[in-house]
């Protein structure tokens, strides 16, 4: 087993170091006919907020070469509806469930944790942060979780915020960090003309070019952080996953590539299990 939360009183052990990234895999039933969930170290859910959130206005996706710009607004029916709908499934799933939580304020976060108290279907929290979240706000959200819940907490750190946030969050009690959320990008939706303002789409950037940016961050930050790091961003092959683990990441999250190759989750999990079997004497 791999321990995602070695400093936590209960811990968060996972059987394989391969997870889906929040937002690409739904809540646990979407891929039932395509992925054997037993290959997953854990289910990381779609982002969930206290209150329902509606989808962003379209377009929500643009393609640039090998890359995607995505902007959903993180729609979800709100925590209560999600728990009602998925609690039973999660109990039966056979892998730990990590709830990815969005919240604008620490009061909101406290309410979220309140609703989760006594909930046995969830084994961990992944906190999502906005791109330019300040250190103060990030710490306040983390504190609100820790005060109001016993669950281990992973924080997913925004791409541009690693320098500012990673160390303070680790020192303030985050059990693990996911590096990183996708970088934010902007693309024109059609050609520029002199008459009208250029229609633009803002979104998160996904694709293989994110991977070298991720590795750069991992190589600098893993040796400097006292907590486990989960790697996320542009991982599209077993070689990519191996490189992350070689740099010291405890696990990897696959993002948009899952939509194209759902079987990659199991393929990578199997290969890494083989590596690990060969390595242990």
């Amino acid at each position, binding site marked *: 087993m791999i321990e995602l939360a070695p400093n936590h009183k209960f811990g968060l052990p996972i059987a*394989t170091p391969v997870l889906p990234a929040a937002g690409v895999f739904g809540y646990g039933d979407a891929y039932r006919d395509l992925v054997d969930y037993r290959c997953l170290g854990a289910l990381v859910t779609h982002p969930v907020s206290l209150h329902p959130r509606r989808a962003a206005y379209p377009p929500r996706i643009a393609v640039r070469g090998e890359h995607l710009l995505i902007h959903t607004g993180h729609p979800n029916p709100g925590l209560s509806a999600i728990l009602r709908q998925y609690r039973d499934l999660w109990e039966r799933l056979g892998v730990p469930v990590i709830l990815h939580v969005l919240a604008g304020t620490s009061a909101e976060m406290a309410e979220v944790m309140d609703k989760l108290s006594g909930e046995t279907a969830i084994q961990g929290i992944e906190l999502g942060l906005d791109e330019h979240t300040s250190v103060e706000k990030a710490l306040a959200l983390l504190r609100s979780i820790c005060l109001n819940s016993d669950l281990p907490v992973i924080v997913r750190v925004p791409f541009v915020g690693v320098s500012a946030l990673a160390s303070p969050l680790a020192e303030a009690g985050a059990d693990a960090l996911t590096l990183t959320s996708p970088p934010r990008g902007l693309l024109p939706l059609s050609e520029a003309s002199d008459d009208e303002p250029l229609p633009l789409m803002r979104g998160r950037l996904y694709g293989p070019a994110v991977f070298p940016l991720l590795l750069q961050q991992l190589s600098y930050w893993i040796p400097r952080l006292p907590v486990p790091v989960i790697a996320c961003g542009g991982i599209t092959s077993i070689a990519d996953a191996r490189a992350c683990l070689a740099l010291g990441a405890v696990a990897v999250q696959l993002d948009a590539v899952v939509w194209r190759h759902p079987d990659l989750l199991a393929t990578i999990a199997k290969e890494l299990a083989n590596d690990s079997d060969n*390595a242990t004497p």
Partner: protein
Amino acid sequence: MGFHCPSLVAWNMVSMSKHTTAVFREAHPEPPFWRVRFEMVNPPRPGCFLLADFGAPLREVLFPAALHTEGFDVLVPPGHPVQRLLPGESVDLLGPFGRGFQTEQVERLLLVAEAQLLSPLLPLLEAAPMVTLVLAAPTRALLPPAQRFPPSVELHLITQDGSVGYAGTLETCHNADSPLLEAIPWADRLCASCDPAFYPKLARMVRQQRLNPPPNFAQVLIQVAMPCGVGACEICRVQTVNGERRACTDGPVFDVLDFVF
């Protein structure tokens, strides 16, 4: 940090039933498209779809344009990546996905389409004893030739410039003499493939002509980006009277009354 996976062997035993392949057979021009034939064991029903991996970062949504016992056809634009396939080569597919058209026990089937979105309706051209197709395009040249359709289909054309058929657009088919308005009372099922912006208007026309249409009397296909096909990405959400729904799992065929706001 070693780890062992107790269920390693068992993984392969679960049926991963939605990952499949089709074999490319042949392609021939059918202007302005190419008609491409694939062999496949369980091709999607009309209005359902497959996600095909043609090498792009997103899989491509394929709606069948014709169904055969041994497979299906799709229509693709010229220059499409299928042109690089060799006959006999297989294509990696996910699916079939979605809720398709229901045309069982229908006698009088009314099909409504904009020409460039027609292809998912083509498998329905002989799905009922009597079929009427109302087909709209900006101008005559953008309509497929009439002889492409089975002679049993009653064809009503609408062109914006009046170059053939009724002069106007689907949106402006309010007049009593418009082919769309005339056909709605006749039909016992309507299946449409148009710009979704038209569906609230279509819902009003249906309400106006049928007073209390039964559920699913008018079924409308929504073509939007569907990256995952299984309800995981939330990119395909559409607004309905019952709240947001996913095109991939709740659709892509919806009851038009879902769009009466």
